[in-house]
């Protein structure tokens, strides 16, 4: 395996939100990395810190939020230390982001050409006319038919899938090195989701982009990414190659999360559930944040934060659990088959 170059190295960041009801510890010592040209999955349930991680990276947190400690090294530079003016040049040009809701992420009162050429002209230092050419080229790449005419339309004249394509086109026209896609297909229907995923995969390969794909859909992760970071309660509980994580998870949360997907298998058996709720981060559980919902939890889990153990440095396999060595959470072939098969064997 050739050693890939790290493009983004997030080291032990803490992001807090200061609210009326107290301090929300949204990120509590998050570390992970993204290699050049590689799609990485950021997986977890709502409120686990996925989007906050993306926003911390781009420094676009809401006013009451602040990254109080840690380093975010992008191409050798700590983004948290950069002056605002230089950070502006990173956003969009170097690191682009695609948002979840294509209905709200484009400005409804401007035509597509205005929205696209402005950013392109600004970031690529070219005239509006050149920018328009880049924009058309990008729109054609993402499969907007009759781009030259449609670029004069307003966002509401496009369907959800098309809007997401336009947004992708706008992000890619700036030729970024890292693309952050925050739940890019969650608001879309399955058949449109398949189209957009195919497009993202194609664009990612073609432009050699590094990508952070934020999602809670495990199917999307399995098909799109090479490596995965599992988030829970503002921490990264497990990291590793996608295949390893799916087949041989080390953290009880990862396994429980996978078991709770309704399988496409025949029997109407009960779903495995994780008892309780996603923790609120205003007053998070002490020790391991998963312990109140974990069936393997012991006394140490309530008391001490589990260390970040590197299992396999080469693969980047890491886990935060006191008991991972004693647990066997391996998913056997028949369970895997149950999860994935559509046509059942009879």
């Amino acid at each position, binding site marked *: 395996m050739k050693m890939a170059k790290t493009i983004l190295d997030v080291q032990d960041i803490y992001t807090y939100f200061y609210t009326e009801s107290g301090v929300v510890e949204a990120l509590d010592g998050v570390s992970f990395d993204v290699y050049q040209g590689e799609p990485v999955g950021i997986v977890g349930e709502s409120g686990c810190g996925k989007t906050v991680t993306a926003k911390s990276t781009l420094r676009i947190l809401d006013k009451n939020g602040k990254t109080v400690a840690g380093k975010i090294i992008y191409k050798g530079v700590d983004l948290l230390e950069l002056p605002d003016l230089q950070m502006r040049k990173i956003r969009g040009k170097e690191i682009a982001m695609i948002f979840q809701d294509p209905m709200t992420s484009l400005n409804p009162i401007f035509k597509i050409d205005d929205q696209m050429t402005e950013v392109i002209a600004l970031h690529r230092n070219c005239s509006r006319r050149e920018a328009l050419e880049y924009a058309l080229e990008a729109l054609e790449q993402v499969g907007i038919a009759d781009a030259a005419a449609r670029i004069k339309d307003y966002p509401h004249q496009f369907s959800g899938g098309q809007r997401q394509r336009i947004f992708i086109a706008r992000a890619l026209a700036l030729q970024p090195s890292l693309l952050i896609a925050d739940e890019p297909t969650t608001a879309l229907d*399955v*058949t449109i989701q398949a189209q957009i995923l195919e497009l993202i995969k194609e664009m990612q390969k073609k432009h050699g982009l590094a990508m952070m794909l934020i999602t809670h859909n495990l*199917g*999307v992760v*399995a098909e799109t990414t090479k490596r995965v970071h599992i988030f829970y309660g503002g921490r990264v509980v497990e990291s590793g190659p996608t295949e390893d994580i799916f087949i041989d998870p080390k953290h009880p949360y990862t396994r429980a999360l996978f078991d*709770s997907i309704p399988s496409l298998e025949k029997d109407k058996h009960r779903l495995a559930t*994780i008892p309780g709720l996603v923790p609120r981060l205003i007053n998070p559980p002490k020790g391991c944040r998963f312990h109140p919902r974990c069936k393997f939890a012991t006394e140490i889990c309530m008391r001490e934060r589990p260390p970040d153990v590197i299992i396999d440095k080469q693969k980047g396999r890491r886990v935060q659990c006191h008991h991972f060595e004693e647990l066997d959470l391996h998913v056997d072939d028949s369970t*895997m088959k149950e999860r994935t098969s559509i046509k059942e064997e009879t």
Partner: protein
Amino acid sequence: MVSTFEEYEVIDLFSGWNPKTDPIINLINLKKWFPISEQSILFSRVVAQIKAVDGVNLFLNKGETLGLVGESGCGKSTTARVTVKLEEPTEGSIYFKGIDIFQPMTREEELAIKRQLQMVFQDPYSSLNPRRMVLDLIKEPFDIHFPDMTYEEKESRVLEILTKVGLEDYHALRYPHEFSGGQRQRIGIARALAIHPEVVLLDEPVSALDVSVQAQILNLLHDLQVEFNLTYMFIAHDLSVIKHVSDRVAVMYLGKIMEMSPTGELFRKTAHPYSVSLLSAIPRPDPRIKMDRIILEGDVPSPINPPSGCPFHPRCYKAQEICSQVTPTLDELEPGHFVACHFPEI
């Protein structure tokens, strides 16, 4: 044991219905069109019709779960809303236990029917009045259907149903914003089930929830179905959820039923090209699988001006000339397996 309403006078409209042979709900050629009108100074005139539901034939048997699946805008929710008498149909009829629910009737008869048909809505954040306590929210159905009931009895019945859906007594005095999404959905379910309906229409009950919470709600719905002997119409766009919960599945596209069959059959012997592409679009949660998927071109056409003939023909990989001219009827190809296609796969 479930406390019943035997001591209350309930009109018996359904003496002619035989649960062994007749479906409990029968939709016949149901159409629901919404007019779009254009205003001039004096007059408004109807310029077009949104054909949300355009000739649906569908039935539910007592005690089963029928999954209704389709992409957004295909008319699933409208079908459900008409079925519970929240909307008047434009054409066609709905029989509940052999009675046409839209025939002229007295207020008492209408209430007797509506009591048996309840609905759980998709978004637990907007379907509960934020200014009312849970106690009042769940008590409301009793106020409408059992005005003679004493306050004490209503209250004890509210507490009973709260425990049934997995909430605690003290939750009755709280307001909706104090609950998580999953708990709110439990309140919505309690509200629907409080007056012991026979048929419950679940409109995307889990799609706003996280995977681990989704599993809890699906298990709860299953338990309640067994306990109260309920008939479900389960609307979802997620096929793995549909497969998990349903006995039979109906696939809907642009206001029409494309295919309806027992669940196992639909996944094993998928007949309609639209169902085939829908199944192939689901991302599988196994990184080792490499799928050859059918990616549909374009978007779902507008229901204002749906394509002639088979509504799916512009995106269909098997379309021939006849498909754009003749609308296929929903035919029973094999016992229990209905397909509306000129060139089915079986």
